[in-house]
């Protein structure tokens, strides 16, 4: 797609159209999300609730990959730390949910810094491996310190957000919209610009006078903060913090797939991907054990044929040739 022939005015117009198209998609999505509780079964709301938290995970991941250019194989490291911190505080010291969530976010940020350190030294697969190992270590830690973490069983938290599906849905939706607004805003802000630059061309960006170390660490912390918060909320939604809900590699894989599926560097696409992934898994439950297989196949197909991702495709669908 090239605009060589087009006059700059039409190019500007196209840019505006693109923008409006994105707004349009969001509008549709938000309105739909807001009206769902009116006519959708409590069960489906439950599914979407989980999906929205995954959406936040995926967005945070996309901030790191899409903007800072860091391939993080271990999103569940950040998620898990936040989730477990919150869960432990709640079940051991009976702190109130809001406090626990805050604490979860805080702890996750610490984790984010831990992860940022290697990121500044290592590239590509090497950094990827470190993130992977981080998760494995966390997994083992949880099992070893079973006394505190409940080990393989996981721990049941005394408090939950609510037992009413609709309330849970609203909380999740609120969390999602707020995170989306902030993360998307951030990505379009000057910070996002600097971040993208340092991701795409570190040397050039430094030569323009930007301390990319500072900005990358900031990116990791932001990503961690949101992962941690969502992780904690998920725990208080599920009522349990267990390895296979918030730490397992499989969860991380789901997050990554969701983000890539929805469209890299779109932040909002990640949400789309997450909803699609989890809803699909749920809808295909009648397939019994094969549902995961089919979902993976669909995701693979999307990656092969629409590498732009769902949102990317939606935004450029018109312009192709």
């Amino acid at each position, binding site marked *: 797609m090239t605009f060589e022939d087009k006059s700059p005015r039409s190019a500007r117009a196209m840019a505006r159209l693109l923008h409006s198209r994105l707004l349009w998609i969001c509008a549709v999505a938000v309105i739909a999300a807001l009206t769902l509780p009116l006519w959708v079964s409590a069960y489906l709301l439950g599914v979407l609730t989980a999906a929205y938290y995954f959406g936040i995970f995926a967005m945070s991941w996309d901030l790191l990959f899409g903007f800072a250019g860091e391939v993080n194989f271990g999103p569940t490291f950040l998620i898990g730390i936040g989730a477990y911190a919150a869960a432990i505080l709640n079940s051991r010291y009976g702190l109130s949910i809001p406090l626990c969530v805050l604490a979860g976010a805080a702890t996750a940020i610490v984790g984010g810094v831990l992860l940022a350190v*290697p990121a500044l030294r290592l590239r590509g*697969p090497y950094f990827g491996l470190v993130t992977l190992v981080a998760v494995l270590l966390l997994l083992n830690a949880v099992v070893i310190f079973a006394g505190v973490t409940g080990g393989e069983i996981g721990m049941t938290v005394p408090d939950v957000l609510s037992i009413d599906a609709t309330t849970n849905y609203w909380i999740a939706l609120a969390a999602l919209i707020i995170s989306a607004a902030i993360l998307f805003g951030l990505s379009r802000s000057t910070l996002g610009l600097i971040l993208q630059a340092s991701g795409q061309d570190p040397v050039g960006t430094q030569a323009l006078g930007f301390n990319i170390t500072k900005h990358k660490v900031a990116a990791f912390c932001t990503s961690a903060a949101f992962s941690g918060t969502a992780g904690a909320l998920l725990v208080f939604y599920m009522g349990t913090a267990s390895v296979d809900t918030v730490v397992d590699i499989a969860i991380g894989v789901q997050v990554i797939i969701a983000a890539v599926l929805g469209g890299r560097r779109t932040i909002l696409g990640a949400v789309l991907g997450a909803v699609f992934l989890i809803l699909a898994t749920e809808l295909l439950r009648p397939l019994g054990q094969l549902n995961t297989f089919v979902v993976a196949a669909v995701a693979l197909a999307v*990656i092969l044929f629409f590498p732009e991702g769902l949102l990317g495709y939606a935004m450029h669908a018109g312009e192709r040739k």
Partner: protein
Amino acid sequence: MLTLQILIDGFAISSLYGLAAVGFTLIFGVSGVLNLSHGGIMVVAALVGWATAAEYGFGSYLGAAVGVLAGLGLALVTYFVVVRQIQNSRAIPKEETEIFVLTGTLLWGIMIQEGMAYLFSDNPITMRPLIAGVVNIFGVRTPANEILIAVLCWVVIGLLWLLVNRTGAGKALLAASMNPRGLSLLGFELSRIYLLVWVIYGVLAGVAGVLLATFLGVSSANAGQLTASAFSIVVLGGLGSVSGSLVAAYLVGYLETVTAYLIAPTLRPIPALVLLVLAVYVRPQGLLGRR
């Protein structure tokens, strides 16, 4: 006594790690692909081998053979259906091929794993040992099969070494891992080289899978774990360095065994992981990797 025990016990498992990792690193070295469906391919070889041997009663040897073929076949499918598609895709920007290959093979791996779980359930299976009985080495009771495995691993690795260092095709392969452009300027077709390396990989993964099935047993649920361990070993040894992977394999294998014996079986994987992180920090290019 205990030392000898550890030496013997660690050797078989390390050799197996090594065999599994070599193919993985070879592909990366030659075509720059990290194949995250690696574990899945091993599992398929193991399960198909087991099914042929036990379910359909064709006996261990035929079973093993069929298993290896299955591994080879699946490796080629992986290459043509997933990897090639991504590498040749116009829509995927070159600088992002890597992450796409990673995600793609990851998904493919999940598909394989789920498919296997559907066909064979996720119960671990074990193939009947190729040779039964135990041998007593200075008072250490060692299953004959374990010895056979160690030997087979080294035979295969030896054959690979001969192939790479003594045959034209092998030399070309080696050259491709250093400088594909230079090789194509000498009249070699890279596509053929890549095909060759995937064939080799398939065989190696297949053999490793089958041997694993006769040794520790395999379940479809192991796929992820197998990939992870191969990945770590390969990075530790230096991406693309065959000898590096072998060294790393023994390092990890023995570290795990020693931990299991001297500290506690539960902590088995941890020291290896820590070592890995440290190694990657201190020497990002791996033990024998070149920058």
